[in-house]
C-alpha cells in the first residue's frame, strides 16, 4: 500500500508584528512544518513501520525554501518527496482551495496512492478544506477530522474516529482508497533523529512545475483576492494588574478571595 502525505510550510507570526498592505512583513514570519501535517506524517510513517504501507511519499506546494520543511518529513521517515512550484504560483497572495486541490489531484494521478493523509487545516490560512476537496477531485472516499485510524488493508476499509464537537467521537468505516484529514493528538509525532536527518539528505525531493503535471496557469487562478489585512481591534476591557510578580499575584489572590473560590 502506498501512502501520500500532503504537507505545508506555514508561517507563524511573532507576538509583535506589522501588516504591510495585505501581508505581514516578512521579518515577523517564522516558517515551520504545519502542526497538523506533522501528525499526518507520523501517521504515515507508523503505517510504514507496521508493515501496512510499502512507501510513504510526501508532497508539498511551495517555493524552494520549503525544501527545508519537507526534509523534516523525510527525516521523520517519509521515503521521498515531491515539491510543486511554478512562477504562476508566485502571484496569488491567497491560493484558493480549488487550485490546491487541482495541483494535488495531478500529483495523485501520477503517484496513485491508496491512502492520502492531510492535516485538518493549515495554521496560517486555516481553510480546513483542501483534503475533502481533493477527495472529490480524485474520486476517493474521505473522512475529515480523524483522530484514530485502524486500517484494514485486506478488506480495503479504514476504521476511523472523527472528532466532533463537544467531546463526542463518530465511528466511521471508510472505503479505501481514501483521503483522511488528520487531527492533532492522533499520535505522538517523533522528533527527527540525527540518523534520520542524515538519511534525509540523500532522499529525493522531486521538483515539479505545473507543466510537468499537465496543468496550465489558468488552472490555478484564484477566485479569491485578499483585499485587506489588519489587526483586529482589541475588545479587551480587562483590568490588568501591574507591578512585580509578587504585587500582581497579590492582587489576583484578592480577586480569588473576593469571588469566594479560594481562601
Amino acid at each position, binding site marked *: 500500500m502506498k501512502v501520500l502525505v500532503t504537507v505545508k510550510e506555514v508561517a507563524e507570526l511573532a507576538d509583535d508584528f506589522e501588516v504591510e498592505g495585505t501581508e505581514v512583513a516578512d521579518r515577523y514570519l517564522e516558517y515551520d512544518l504545519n502542526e497538523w501535517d506533522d501528525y499526518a506524517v507520523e501517521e504515515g510513517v507508523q503505517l510504514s513501520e507496521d508493515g501496512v504501507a510499502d512507501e510513504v511519499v510526501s508532497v508539498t506546494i511551495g517555493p524552494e525554501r520549503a525544501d527545508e520543511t519537507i526534509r523534516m518529513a523525510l527525516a521523520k521517515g517519509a521515503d521521498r518527496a515531491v515539491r510543486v512550484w511554478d512562477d504562476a504560483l508566485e502571484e496569488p497572495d491567497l491560493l484558493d482551495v480549488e487550485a490546491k486541490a487541482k495541483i494535488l489531484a495531478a500529483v495523485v494521478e501520477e503517484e496513485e496512492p491508496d491512502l492520502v493523509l492531510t492535516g485538518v487545516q493549515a495554521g496560517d490560512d486555516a481553510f480546513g478544506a483542501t483534503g475533502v476537496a481533493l477527495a472529490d477531485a480524485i474520486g476517493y472516499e474521505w473522512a475529515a477530522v480523524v483522530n484514530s485510524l485502524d486500517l484494514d488493508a485486506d478488506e480495503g476499509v479504514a476504521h476511523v474516529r472523527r472528532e466532533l464537537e463537544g467531546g463526542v467521537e463518530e465511528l466511521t468505516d471508510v472505503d479505501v482508497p481514501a483521503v483522511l484529514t488528520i487531527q492533532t493528538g492522533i499520535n505522538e509525532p517523533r522528533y527527527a533523529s540525527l540518523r534520520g536527518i542524515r538519511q534525509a539528505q540523500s532522499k529525493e525531493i522531486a521538483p515539479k512545475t505545473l507543466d510537468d503535471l499537465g496543468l496550465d496557469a489558468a488552472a490555478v487562478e484564484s477566485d479569491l483576492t485578499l483585499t485587506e489585512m489588519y489587526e*483586529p481591534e482589541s475588545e479587551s476591557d480587562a483590568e490588568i494588574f501591574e507591578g512585580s510578580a509578587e504585587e500582581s499575584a497579590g492582587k489576583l489572590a484578592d480577586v480569588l478571595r473576593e469571588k469566594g473560590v479560594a481562601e
Partner: protein
Amino acid sequence: MTDVLAVTEHRRGDLRDESFEVISAGRELADDTGGELHLAVISGEVEEFAESVNREGVDHVHTVEYGEEFNHDVYTQAVEALYDEVDPTVLLVPNSVNGLDYAPAVANALDLPLVTDAVGVEYDDTLVVTREMYGSKVETTVEVEGDSFVVTTRGAEWPQAEGVGDADVSAFDFQPDESEVGSTVTGFEEVGGGDVDISEADFLVSIGRGIEEEDNLPLIEDLVEATDATLSSSRPIVDNGWLAKNRQVGQSGKVVTPDVYLAIGISGAVQHVAGMKGSDTIIAVNTDPNAPIFDIADYGIVGDLFEVVPELIEEFE
C-alpha cells in the same frame, strides 16, 4: 438566482445551535442579494426539525428524508441536488466538523469558489467575506470572483434566529445513489469521562502551551492544591498526552461555566474560547499582551507564569 440556501445541522436527534446561526447569516445575506432564504434539512426527524427551524426570515424549508445521522456522501449528493433546484447565489454551511466534511466536496463538484470559516459575509454585486488568519492574529477581507459561492460560517458569530416563520415546508424529491456512498457511520462515543467532571467545578485553573514542558506541571498542581481548584487545560496539553482528555476545555472538549476561570499560559484560540467564554469571571496570565484571551478576560496579568504562579501559591499556603 438571488436566493440563499443554508444547510442545517443535527446530531443524535437534536438540532445544533449552528442551524439557528446559519439562518441569521442566511437572512442577512438574502437581504443583500434581494432573494429568498431556503433551508435544507437532511436526514433524521426531518419534519420535526423543519418545524423547529421555521423561524422568522425563513422562506422555504426543503426536507430530505434519508437515514438518521449525518453521512457526508448522502449530504454531498443531497446538497448538490438542492443547489441545482434552488439555484442560489450563496450556499451557506456551518463551519463545523461535519460542515467541513461535505462543503469542500460540494464546492469542488459544482466548481464553485469556496470560502471557509467566515466571521462576516456581505454581498453587493461582489461577495466579500471577513475571515481570520494566523490563529486569529489578523483579520482579512476577501473578495470572491464568480456568480455563485459556497461559504462556511463560524459558530457563535451570528445570533440564533428567533421567532416563528411562515416558510413553506416541502419534501424534496431525492434519493441518493447508494453506489456512491462509501462511508458508514457505525456509532458514537462520548470521550473525556473518568475521575473528574470539569464542567461541575466552581474554580478552574487551566493551563496551555505556556507551560512549555510536562516537567512544569507540578508547579500548576501545587497551585491547584493550595487553592482547592480543579485543573483543566487547552487542547495542546491533551494532544501532548500530559493530561487526560477529560481535562480539555474547548470546542472538542468540555464547555465550562465556572465562577472563576484562571487561564495560565493560554493564548485564547477561538476553539478554546468557545468552551469557556460563559465563565462568570475570567482571569488570564500570559506573556503576550496581544493574546486574544485578554479580549474576554475580566482581569489579567501580562507576565511570566513561572514568576507569577509561585507568588500566587505563596498567597494561599
